[in-house]
């Protein structure tokens, strides 16, 4: 069987070679390893050696001809061996098929014959979301580019919709995929688009209102709130305030209010109940040394909770001064961040309203909050006799994750004790 002599591929970039000279003629005998012909590539000139011994049966190309690499250029075989043309042509077919297969394998994906659809990224993303075949959408952008509104229009047109509603939907970028139409055969009409009625008073939830909203819901959902209440006889406190008011007013010009007395008493009681002055921080219960009590101040569209630092260490006069100053800053919107930070306990006073008791929401990360109701004169049994006394209800909400009912109740009872016998404040 004749063996092929092919044009060798001498370098990665070599595509073809030129036959310079044949060293032998048809019919000559050639020893294995001896040169048959010299070929020239774009870089070098080399000799082709015979891989087998035999007779040079046929040379397919003349000297000077350029041949593609891997092409057969000659046959070596037995002397006078016939190489039918069909044989060589068959071989040629084989080579042809090989080439064709190569072509078939990688399907032609060159840009020309696959018409890429011009569309903006926004259009592509929207089309994907709604599993729309972009080839069905007609683009109104420059040279036919499909824009987002074209896709929207396409989506809208698929769904039965009145011309007006479809225009509104496209203009307002509404996706009508899941809107139920109330017109004939579920056709979508203008009122189905539920355009926000400009007449109702609506303003966006943002700014301080949003912060409060987030914090309240976060606290309500994370901390299991329990609120216990207790009615306090404030009569002695009222007398105490009457006596102390002129003193403090003369020295500071400020008028002592119940808020300060409550804060003062709470601070004293907290120092005896550190567990109420604690927080859960990353699964650790931290009992704060300093007792910083915040008191809620309502401001224009929300509320602020300025904090009196180390309330337990302040005398009543200092405490009053601090409270008045913080209250003023809050109302004038001049509070700075540090005024609002590091609060360990909060008091929310609704005494000025006709509210007896309520369930205040804990001011995270603190773990308890004291709600203060109004002072109202009520008949009370004092050593078996009915007397008119000024009563006030305190509502203590606490975070049951770290405070149980008993300790909270103990705290509230002590606070009640101090408020009903203010002298104890001096101990």
């Amino acid at each position, binding site marked *: 069987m004749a063996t092929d002599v092919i044009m060798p591929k001498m370098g990665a970039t070599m595509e073809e070679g030129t036959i310079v000279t044949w060293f032998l003629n048809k019919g000559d005998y050639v020893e294995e390893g001896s040169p048959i012909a010299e070929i020239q590539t774009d870089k070098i000139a080399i000799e082709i050696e015979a891989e087998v011994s035999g007779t040079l049966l046929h040379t397919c190309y003349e000297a000077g001809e350029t041949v593609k690499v891997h092409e057969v250029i000659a046959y070596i075989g037995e002397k006078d061996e016939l190489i039918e043309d069909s044989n060589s042509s068959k071989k040629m077919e084989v080579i042809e098929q090989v080439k064709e297969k190569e072509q078939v394998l990688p399907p032609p994906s060159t840009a020309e014959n696959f018409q890429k659809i011009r569309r*903006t*990224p*926004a*259009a*592509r*993303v929207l089309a994907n979301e709604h599993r729309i075949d972009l080839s069905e959408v007609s683009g*109104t*952008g*420059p040279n036919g580019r499909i*824009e*987002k509104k074209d896709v929207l229009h396409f989506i809208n047109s698929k769904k039965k919709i009145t011309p007006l509603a479809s225009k509104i939907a496209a203009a307002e970028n509404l996706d009508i995929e899941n809107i139920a139409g109330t017109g004939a055969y579920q056709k979508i009409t203008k009122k189905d688009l539920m355009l926000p009625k400009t007449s109702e008073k609506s303003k966006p939830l943002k700014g301080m209102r949003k912060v409060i909203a987030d914090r309240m819901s976060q606290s309500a959902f994370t901390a299991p709130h329990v609120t216990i209440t207790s009615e306090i006889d404030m009569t002695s406190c009222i007398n105490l305030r009457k006596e102390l008011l002129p003193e403090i007013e003369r020295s500071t010009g400020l008028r002592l209010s119940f808020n300060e007395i409550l804060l003062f008493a709470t601070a004293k009681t907290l120092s005896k109940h550190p567990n109420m002055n604690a927080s859960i921080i990353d699964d650790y219960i931290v009992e704060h040394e300093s007792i910083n009590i915040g008191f809620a101040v309502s401001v224009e569209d929300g509320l602020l909770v300025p904090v009196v630092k180390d309330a337990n260490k302040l005398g009543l006069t200092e405490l009053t001064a601090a409270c008045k100053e913080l209250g003023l800053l809050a109302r004038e919107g001049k509070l700075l961040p540090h005024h609002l930070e590091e609060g360990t306990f909060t008091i929310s006073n609704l005494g000025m309203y006709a509210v007896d008791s309520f369930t205040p929401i804990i001011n995270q990360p603190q773990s308890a909050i004291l709600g203060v109701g109004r002072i109202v004169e009520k008949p009370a049994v004092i050593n078996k006799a009915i007397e008119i006394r000024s009563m006030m209800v305190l509502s203590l909400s606490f975070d049951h994750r770290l405070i149980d009912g008993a300790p909270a109740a103990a705290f509230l009872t002590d606070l009640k004790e101090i408020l009903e016998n203010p002298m104890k404040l001096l101990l």
Partner: protein
Amino acid sequence: MRTVTYAEAIRETMSQAMRQDEDVFILGEDIGIYGGAFGVTNGMLEEFGPERVRITPISESAISGCAVGAAMTGMRPILEIQFSDFVMIALDNIVNQAAKTRYMYGGKSKVPLVVRLPGGSGAGFAAQHSQSLEAWMTHVPGLKVVQPSSAYDAKGLLLSAIKDDNPVLFYEHKLLYNVKDEVPEELYEIPLGKAEVKKQGTDITIVATSIMVQRAMEAAEQLEKIGVSVEVIDPRTLVPLDIETIIQSVKKTSRVLVVYEAVKRSGYGAEIASVIAESEAFDYLDAPIKRLGGVATPIPYNPTLEKAAVPQVEDIINECKKIMNL
């Protein structure tokens, strides 16, 4: 609030900084009795004397090298290059020395240097005195590049630049020097790398630098009349660039035009455009990102040609209309 010009704001900042910090001093050509080519250093020689207002010979190579050396050894110099076009003579000291010493010396040295560069065209100074080559500087790691568009921004950014321990190239625009703006008297810093949304809008974002901010705002006003709501963003500093603000805006409006005075080809706007294209904003784009820059020509002397060489308000309006497909 009082109003002062862009030039006065810069002078006031340098003077206040020098009163605060002994190490701060200014050097440059004709900055003394002449008061600087554009009058920016008027009166500073009288207040601070020749020791801290150093008038140099015309030797940009020497004086820039000297400024870098002084910065490396404890001073905080502010070098005025009379025209930003002369920076070429000082480039070796800026690019090979100032930008690289900290890195080359393993973080030991620092170069707290500010180079003030009056740039931009429009005053008829022709080709060698009207160029905008800030893009070159943004290509050099180690340099910060700032381009204030108003007196208020100029003051805040210049103070940050002076306080910054890195070399900062501070590109001022000649045509903005006597534009007035409300500027507080006390010192304040505008952090480098913080863009500002000069005007809110919903239909298209214009990212404009230096004098183009003012022109973008005028164009926006006209466009509002035909129902196109434009958001104008001023990056204020090119390096570091506040990418976040730009991306948020483009995500909102889904269209963007980058406007700058320098030659459009490989101007810094090209960088901004590709940053947008590579960001998540890509999926929100409803029109191709477009740039509007200067014609690729040396700045001609003739006033009509000069005006045609850089984007004007009209060009910005037309470009926006094209993007909006109006």
